[in-house]
């Protein structure tokens, strides 16, 4: 635990227990999404599915990176991950990104993906709102993750034809915003 760092956050008026609980729930959402996206990705096959596979894989890897980036902050603030993996899964900030009943329903898979990303965007917006101007390190981390989640949402939204935008797939390394927390 980073005692003084935690004190600074408390003094700024943030409820650290609530914040840590939110960080743990979002870390769970990231790791469980990494797992469920693995299943979605392997089912992205055929003429429709293969075109989406690459972008689903980038989102999957970046969600795992988000988990890795969140864990140190949880422990700095005096929190911990649950001992039990099942408990960890069940406290996720977002519902499971389950494979649709028809695994060949590519549009259905896209809807699961975009819904998962939208849940994440809401979650990190909430953390940013709680920490802005008060807990600079958590804010910086949550904002970096939020930037990537918004891009993920845009990618899947565009595949669903919800509207045009200027987003492109990653060019180069994954996690351009979060990578500074992984070094």
């Amino acid at each position, binding site marked *: 635990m980073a005692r003084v760092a935690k004190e600074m956050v408390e003094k700024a008026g943030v409820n650290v227990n609530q914040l840590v609980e*939110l960080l743990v729930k979002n870390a769970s959402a990231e790791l469980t999404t990494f797992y469920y996206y693995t299943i979605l990705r392997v089912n992205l096959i055929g003429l429709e599915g293969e075109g989406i596979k690459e972008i689903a894989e980038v989102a999957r890897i970046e969600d795992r990176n988000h988990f890795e980036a969140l864990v140190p902050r949880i422990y700095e603030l005096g929190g911990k991950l649950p001992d039990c993996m099942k408990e960890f899964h069940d406290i996720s900030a977002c519902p*499971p990104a389950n494979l649709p009943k028809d695994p060949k329903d590519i549009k259905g898979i896209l809807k699961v993906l975009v819904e998962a990303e939208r849940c994440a*965007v809401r*979650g990190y*917006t*909430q953390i940013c*709102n709680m920490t802005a101007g008060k807990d600079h390190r958590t804010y910086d981390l949550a904002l970096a993750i939020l930037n990537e989640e918004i891009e993920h949402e845009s990618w899947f939204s565009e595949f669903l034809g919800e509207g045009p935008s200027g987003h492109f797939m990653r060019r180069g390394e994954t996690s351009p915003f979060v990578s500074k927390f992984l070094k």
Partner: protein
Amino acid sequence: MIKLTKSELSHYNGTDNNPGYIAYNGKIYNITDSFLWKKGKHQVLHTAGEDLTEALKEAPHGEDLLDRVPVIGELIE
């Protein structure tokens, strides 16, 4: 459809095997089976058994997400 006062609503807090209900704009929603309302808590900050009309103004989502849970009644004075 049921009718509950705020006081009666507070019993439906999603803990101790009680169902979880919330109110918004005069309607009562059953959130018992929602993954996002396990044990009557939502994203750490919100508790079942309450009128969340004001709280939703600060939430990172709109009222459209309430369409995902059933309306079961109305909140009365």
